[in-house]
């Protein structure tokens, strides 16, 4: 559907995006993962035609973004990191304006906007000024804007940043729902967000693509260890030694004191050896209560470390 071919963007001496190539397939929900500053937004901005690449091509169904910008842009809806809203307009005025600049037929506008606002659930705020809306609603209006004109592809740049947990869940639900009849690209720096909604992932680091695969394949490679956050009321050195000696423990990091008379540790262990039981028994025997034991999710950070380590070994 969309082909990104050897795209680079140079800023001064720095290559913000370095020879990036990937394909967005029709009907899929693609996750675009990377840390802040990895080149996600720059790539999104190039793919949507906001900025131009220093080198490389972007094609949508054979339309080149430079040669045929009009046909290209008509097929893409874009929700940038900061929703491009006009604060002095009401939601309805704003969406009507978007309809007009995106060539939506006049006779179709009313029913089109009714559908979109219904889907995004902003019908009740249509008459309100955008500047008076909450952040979550603003994000929704931004999303509605991206859907105007029924684009085949919807590109969203960090759509859940800055929202409260309830809003995040709702937005993710919405994205899944949209994925049923749109091709969606979702950029994010949060792994479990991508894991929640996306089928395939492209990971970018320092402007380069370091992996592109289904999420299952990616996590399989890094899931041979599990991590726990511990809080134990006992002498730091002794507890540290005891944890180290439990079979299956790979590493223990002392995290200092977070609560009076206790110490925190970050423990990494083999996934196959469940260290929680021996840990409990040992501590019980010594009389040091475990105040907290929390499994840590696999973070994007871990995938990165894994990927960069793999690279190091290859070289």
């Amino acid at each position: 559907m969309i082909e990104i071919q050897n795209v680079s963007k140079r800023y001064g001496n720095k290559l913000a995006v370095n020879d990036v190539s990937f394909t967005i397939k029709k009907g899929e929900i693609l996750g675009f993962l990377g840390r802040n500053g990895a080149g996600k937004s720059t790539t999104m901005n190039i793919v949507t035609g906001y900025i131009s690449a220093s080198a490389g091509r972007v094609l949508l169904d054979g339309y080149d973004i430079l040669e045929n910008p009009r046909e290209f842009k008509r097929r893409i809806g874009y929700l940038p990191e900061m929703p491009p809203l006009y604060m002095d307009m009401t939601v309805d005025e704003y969406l009507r304006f978007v309809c007009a600049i995106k060539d939506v037929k006049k006779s179709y506008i009313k029913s089109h906007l009714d559908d979109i606002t219904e889907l995004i659930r902003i019908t009740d705020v249509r008459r309100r000024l955008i500047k008076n809306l909450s952040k979550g609603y603003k994000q929704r209006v931004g999303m509605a804007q991206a859907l105007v004109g029924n684009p085949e592809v919807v590109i969203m740049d960090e759509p859940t940043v800055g929202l409260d947990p309830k809003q995040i869940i709702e937005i993710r639900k919405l994205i899944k729902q949209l994925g049923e009849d749109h091709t969606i690209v979702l950029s994010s720096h949060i792994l479990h967000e991508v894991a929640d909604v996306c089928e395939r992932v492209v990971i970018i680091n320092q402007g380069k693509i370091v992996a592109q695969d289904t999420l299952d394949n990616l996590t399989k490679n890094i899931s041979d260890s599990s991590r726990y956050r511990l809080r134990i009321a006992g002498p730091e050195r002794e507890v540290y030694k005891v944890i180290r000696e439990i079979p299956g423990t790979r590493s223990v990091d002392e995290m200092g004191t977070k609560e009076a008379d206790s110490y925190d540790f970050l423990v990494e262990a083999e996934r196959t050896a469940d260290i929680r039981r021996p840990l409990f028994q040992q501590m019980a025997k010594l009389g040091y209560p475990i105040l907290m034991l929390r499994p840590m999710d696999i973070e994007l950070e871990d995938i990165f470390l894994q990927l960069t380590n793999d690279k190091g070994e290859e070289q």
Partner: protein
Amino acid sequence: MLAIWKRELQNYFLTSIGYVFMGIFLLVGGFMFFLSNIYSSSASLSGMLGNLNYLFMLIVPILTMKLLSEEKRNKSDQLLLTSPRSIWDIILGKFCAACTVVVISTAVTLFYVIILAVYSNKTYPALIATNYLGFLLLGFSYVAIGVLMSALTENQVSAAVLTIGVNLLLQILESVGSSITIPGLSFLNTVISWMSLYKRFNDFSGGILSFANVIYYISFCGVMLFLAVRVIDKRRWSEG
């Protein structure tokens, strides 16, 4: 283009900008009319319009300063530039919106023409029409300069100050030109006074409707807008 024109025009009157502009323009315009026509019992509008031209120079930047700079700052230009609209559409839409406010404000002063027509027997419709045409063309040129300055910066205040500065500079250009007395360089005098925005306005004030002058103002606007389009387009290719 129409959609952008409509949005910007609405925006002038949704915010205070349109009212501030028209309010100041009409207040000062009223005083000017009183001083140069009623008080001095004159039926010629060229004095009032000549003075209002100086006012335009100072307050047209209110209309243009945020047209492009604010879009860039709020990143709402992401919507426009990723829509199927071309940069020309965007710039022309915005230019026309500001020009529309200029036309509306000027149209209100036609009320004075009615007063003159009723109380004076020396009104010449063709002269007045030429006066107004020159006044509007000069106003449009200020708008075009403002649009270019707004494209150049992300800061509204910088855009406004730049526009006023350029307007003043173009205003004094003629005197600069005529002060060049070095032998052999007198062609500079001709070139500079040819470029002067204000000199041609004087022709209109005197009732001379010259096709060349109309074309001059239209091409002046065209060049300014073309440069604004280039500035916006260049930014997308920027590697800085």
